[in-house]
């Protein structure tokens, strides 16, 4: 890896009581890199991100931009450029799109806030159209866009995305991954947690496979996509090798949830109970 390390996680373990949901996980993200962590439901992906963000207590070392983040509260990590878009989006439903965005830049000055907002409206024209609409009335795809835009308002150096394609229709999933790829061009590093392994591996530089809370495989994303074990377990290809990396613009995720959502109250509104939250 040629890029300097932005995020360095060493020997991270998270326990819910007696059960270790994440054990001895070490991962790294370089500046401007897209790294994906794939794994099944309950593999510990969400727990890993929550621990890095400081939402869950953990053992092990997490360094961000060369600094140990253990003493910092969530807000201070955000201030240093570490942002998380959680699986359930955590939007402010009874507030407008514009207010959601403004709060995304809560720690910035008013001028910077306005500039970031214009930038976001350029990046997500759909949000500009809906700026005075309440966040709760948006469709699932629009909500994911708003969650992304709100996190970007804080000008993160590393954006952690937890299942950004969850509960979205295939066309919208494609949009989301197009934007993820675009963010790299802007110099934002991304740590992407996905069940939609095909699309995630297509967009990422490097990947980790998480199984039962441990890193089972790691390496360049293109290589992992060709690995027969990954292909069998995560890409739904029965042991056959695939030639070349999967097509980013045409993901056919068989492992992931792709039911088309009803407008307004998509299945995105509620996090699936139980995932990674077992006692």
């Amino acid at each position, binding site marked *: 890896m040629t890029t300097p390390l932005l995020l360095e996680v060493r020997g991270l373990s998270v326990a819910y009581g007696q059960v270790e949901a994440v054990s001895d996980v070490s991962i790294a993200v370089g500046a401007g890199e897209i790294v994906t962590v794939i794994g099944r439901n309950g593999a510990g992906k969400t727990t890993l991100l929550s621990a890095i*963000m400081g*939402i869950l207590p953990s053992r092990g070392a997490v360094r961000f931009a060369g600094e140990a983040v*253990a*003493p910092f*509260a*969530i*807000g201070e990590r*955000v*201030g240093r450029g570490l*942002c*998380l*878009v*959680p699986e359930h*989006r*955590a*939007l*402010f*439903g*009874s*507030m407008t799109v514009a*207010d959601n965005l*403004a*709060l*995304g*830049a*809560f*720690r910035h000055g008013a001028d910077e806030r306005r500039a970031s907002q214009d930038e976001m409206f350029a990046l997500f024209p759909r949000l500009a159209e809906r700026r005075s609409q309440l966040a709760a009335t948006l469709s699932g795809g629009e909500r994911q866009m708003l969650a992304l835009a*709100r*996190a970007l*308002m*804080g000008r993160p150096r590393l954006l952690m995305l937890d299942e950004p394609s969850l509960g979205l229709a295939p066309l919208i999933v494609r949009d989301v991954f197009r934007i993820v790829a675009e963010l790299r061009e802007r110099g934002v590093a991304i740590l992407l947690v996905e069940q939609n392994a095909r699309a995630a591996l297509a967009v990422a530089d490097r990947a980790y496979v998480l199984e039962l809370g441990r890193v089972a495989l790691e390496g360049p994303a293109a290589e992992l996509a060709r690995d027969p074990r990954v292909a069998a377990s995560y890409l739904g290809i029965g042991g056959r090798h695939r030639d070349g990396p999967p097509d980013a613009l045409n993901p056919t995720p068989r492992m992931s949830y792709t039911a088309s959502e009803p407008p307004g109250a998509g299945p995105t509104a509620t996090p699936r109970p139980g995932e990674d939250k077992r006692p």
Partner: protein
Amino acid sequence: MNLQVAMLLGQSGITSGAVYALLALAILLVFSVTRILLIPQGEFVSFAALTMAAMQEGRPVRLGWLLGALCLAAVAMDLIASVRARRRPAVSRPTLWLCAWAAAATALSMLLPLAALGHAVQALVTIALIVPLGPLLYRVCFQPVAAAHALVLLVISIAAHVALVGIALFIFGPEGARTEPFSDAVFTVGPALIQSQTLWVVAVSALLVGLLYVGFERHLYGKALRATAVDRLGAELVGISPDLAGRVSLAVAAFIGALSGVLIAPIITIYFDSGFIISLKGFVGALIGGLASYPLAALGALVVGQAESFATFWASAYKEVIVFTLLIPVLLWRSLARTGVEDEE
């Protein structure tokens, strides 16, 4: 009952209803942002009323002792917290600001010849003394356990209330106090006599409600408080510190409580323990609004004010009973309709 009596009772109901509405808004704000049911809300009212009365009678204002003790506790807790987080021992900037504010307000209350100065100055110094009580209370009592179950927070809230009532008895003594009205003018409108104090209460309450509305709709910090109430984790993830939200909401609650105390002190006699029953009526108003809607909470509080006022006329001995009985049909209806009440735990 003739029209004139009804007008008088209605007027008195509106006056107390306006104060209950303010308290209902404060209780609702604190609850939605921090999940704390702020039982000591009433103490802000009684502390303010008794402080202002002490000023007018030329007695020393001894609230500084309580502020000083809370400041010391806050500083100590900051130091301990920083050591526990394995950082350099340090006092956080908000705590320093609070201590500075408390010291300045205490100095003003001791140095100014308050009895000789007008109502406005007395009211301002009183409010300046009470406001830091809110955030200090949050720092000392609630911040260390901010993530605890709402029931734990409720128990702490009750304990803080009991402690503050005892402290009030110590600081202010057992005698009741009533302050002079802002003005003695009485207006005649048709068959009704309208006291100017009523107008003061209604006007200031309306102004404050307007200010709160603008603050929450337009100002970033107001929006941040709303955001914390809507999605606590979401707010943290954009960098809104829950501690900041807690301190700000308690400061607003203390301000509202102090203002309410200054407003009603000329109307009813306040004792060291009067705050509880007053804020309880605000709480009934907030409950009528389902502990979720600000306009409904204010409306509920106005209903409580009217019910209390007319109950005083018809069945004076039962007036509190009648007011709190209002809750039963409301709770029944709410539990049957199952809307509005946010139950997260």
